[in-house]
């Protein structure tokens, strides 16, 4: 009897806990808008293609590591949320407001899959935008393809998104292969440094860069002097850097996490090893890198595929206002930087395509509108081009360097063929 009472009370307590602390994950569009999931009375034929689109709302999903070791990249989803709020404040698109549903996957593929299935089947989202990580994305790629749900702008430069044609998957991020090519070409042709070593992360991200760098050097009849791998979990890179130093390179290419880049640059300074460090877009947040390396990031050359966070580009300025207006309101600790801005760049073509697709929106019209983007250059990326057979939207990067803690452009946009 009393045991039952205890159990009931426990359940009550649990229920109160759940209802008392609402999950913060849903980035609401204007608060007065009631949530309307898919209209059930639509005819079955058009139902699937119109999922998530009602008279006044378009439901969009995104998974994101809001907690866990990759939480730094959680800012991407919050950036998209701020972008959508900005669009909604401007009146939405064809009378509809964009509503972004964010699900935390902690950068764990099984959780990503659960979150995506929930968003697709229970919430009924129209499309997915962004989504951080190669591993999490690979876990849901086939599912989304099978369900014919459009997925625009995976937040990862893996070439796996486009190596096999998928009508509903549109990738923006220039591949890591393209980035590695751009870096090697810069070193050989502009910086005139042909003794090159590489520090890479021992996973798909690092290995794709490694192979591309090897291939590009081979074209010029050269090879890497040293290839040193870093494990995701490593906290100490002393032996790694010593190995690099032994090879006496003039330049070292970094395909690692920001944390590892900071440790490597710091350890190298201690060992009086001063090569030219070049890095991928993953490490292109110059103010952040300057801060966490205590200034050692000065002079590092990196490539990037979106306008710099502190540039005078009109769209960047506009997005920065959206950050101040909505991003900071949602999360007072939000920082303006590369990751937050990435949330805008991955969603821009989606927004443009929704505009182009017209008021009678469905998934097929969205795909056609995306395919019609040709050298679209109104965002903070560069010359986004899709086509009936082309799913890699951007192939251009530019090089920049860190000067007094700020990013400074070194080159104009470079198209990598």
């Amino acid at each position: 009897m009393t045991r039952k009472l205890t159990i009931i009370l426990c359940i009550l307590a649990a229920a109160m806990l759940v209802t008392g602390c609402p999950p913060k994950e849903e980035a609401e569009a204007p608060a007065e808008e009631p949530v309307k999931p898919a209209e059930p009375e639509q005819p079955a034929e058009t139902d699937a293609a119109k999922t998530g689109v009602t008279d006044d709302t378009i439901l969009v999903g995104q998974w994101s590591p809001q907690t866990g070791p990759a939480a730094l990249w959680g800012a991407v989803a919050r950036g998209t949320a701020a972008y959508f709020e900005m669009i909604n404040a401007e009146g939405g698109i064809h009378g509809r407001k964009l509503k972004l549903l964010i699900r935390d996957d902690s950068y764990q593929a099984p959780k990503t899959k659960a979150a995506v299935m929930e968003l697709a089947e229970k919430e009924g989202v129209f499309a997915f935008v962004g989504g951080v990580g190669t591993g999490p994305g690979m876990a849901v790629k086939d599912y989304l393809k099978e369900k014919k749900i459009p997925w625009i702008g995976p937040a990862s430069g893996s070439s796996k998104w486009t190596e096999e044609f998928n009508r509903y998957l549109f990738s923006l991020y220039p591949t890591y292969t393209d980035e590695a090519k751009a870096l090697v070409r810069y070193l050989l042709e502009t910086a005139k440094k042909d003794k090159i070593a590489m520090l890479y992360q021992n996973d798909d991200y690092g290995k794709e860069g490694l192979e591309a760098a090897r291939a590009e050097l081979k074209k010029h009849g050269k090879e890497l002097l040293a290839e040193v791998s870093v494990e995701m979990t490593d906290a100490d890179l002393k032996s790694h850097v010593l190995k690099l130093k032994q090879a006496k390179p003039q330049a070292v290419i970094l395909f690692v996490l920001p944390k590892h880049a900071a440790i490597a640059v710091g350890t190298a300074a201690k060992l009086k090893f001063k090569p030219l460090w070049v890095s991928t877009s993953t490490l292109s947040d110059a103010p952040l890198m300057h801060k966490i390396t205590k200034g050692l990031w000065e002079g590092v050359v990196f490539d990037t595929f979106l306008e710099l966070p502190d540039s005078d580009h009109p769209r960047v300025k506009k997005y920065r206002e959206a950050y101040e207006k909505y991003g900071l309101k949602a999360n007072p600790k939000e920082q303006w930087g590369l990751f937050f801005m990435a949330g805008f760049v991955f969603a821009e073509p989606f927004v443009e395509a929704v505009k182009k697709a017209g008021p009678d929106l469905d998934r097929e019209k969205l795909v056609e509108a995306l395919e019609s983007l040709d050298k679209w250059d109104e965002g903070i990326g560069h010359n986004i081009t899709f086509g009936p057979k082309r799913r890699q939207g951007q192939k251009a990067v530019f090089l920049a360097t860190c000067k007094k803690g700020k990013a400074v452009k070194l080159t104009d946009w470079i198209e990598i063929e």
Partner: protein
Amino acid sequence: MFLQLIVMGLATGCLYALIALAMVIIYKTSEILNFSQGELAMVGAYIAFLLLDTLGLPFAVALPLTFLLSMALGALCELLFLQPARERARVIPLILLWAFTFFVLYLAGFVEPGVPVSLAVIVLVFAVWMTAETFSKRPLRKPTLLGLIIITLGLEMVLYGGAGGIWGAGQERLPSPVSDTAGFEVGQVYLSGLDLITFGGSVLIMLLLFLFFRYTRLGVAMKATAQNPLAARLMGIRPARIYSFTWALAALVGAFAGLLTASAQPLDNNLMMEPLLKGFAAAVLGGMHSLAGAVLGGCLLGVIESLVAGYLPDGTQYKSTVAFMIIILVLCIRPSGLLGRHFVKKV
């Protein structure tokens, strides 16, 4: 190259040894494997960050304060999380625990400023607990040792999530009085000021711990409690206080390791994940009951890792694996080495 690898390995090994020492101090006294040791050290580093960077205090004030606050945090964790489990009559720590949990949740922003809701939940949970306590016919069972170890795992998650919520996921840089990046050359070996602090500080801490356990009343009381809590109690020692103090001491050693780690790399809440695993491996390697063993284990592990990474082709890939192979090997050769001891009745 060889000398450089050895010296670098020793520097890393000292960090492992410090974490191992912190774990051994608690294990020696209460046979609990404290998996929250790494996060306690991480929070220690964040406390230093708060004092030095956010509040802008000078090092001379901030560092002693960091150590004091870390000790208080260690003792508080023991008081709030382990004591209510160990001795169920302790109602006050339990209420404090809930108040503390909600305070952390509130700071981290998971609980809306609606304090009434939080209070209502606290009252309700307390009511449930009292109901269960009053009406259940048989007393609630005390947890086993394993139960207490699992509580430290839970504590690890509370500290990890709490730090993530309070300080965010962004990476920070801890101001440091000594540079890790300005190197100088001794013979053929490069060293930094931080390396010297690491070596000097570790040796000093090891020496002080040795003297403490050998010659002070409190140290002897800790050893007595470890050997026989009942007899210790009869001799006028309060085991509950000894346990709290043990955690404070371990947190102090851990905080030193946390500060050293955070001086050489960006600070986020993942700071101590890897060092904790390696420290644990070092403690197992050296023997969980021995302070000297922890130091030896840490240094050995650091040097082995450094040499493996430096000399094997692609060695940097297998460096971390070595730590875990060592755990497996030790457990193979001495299957009773790690947990077996507590089945042996101590006299």
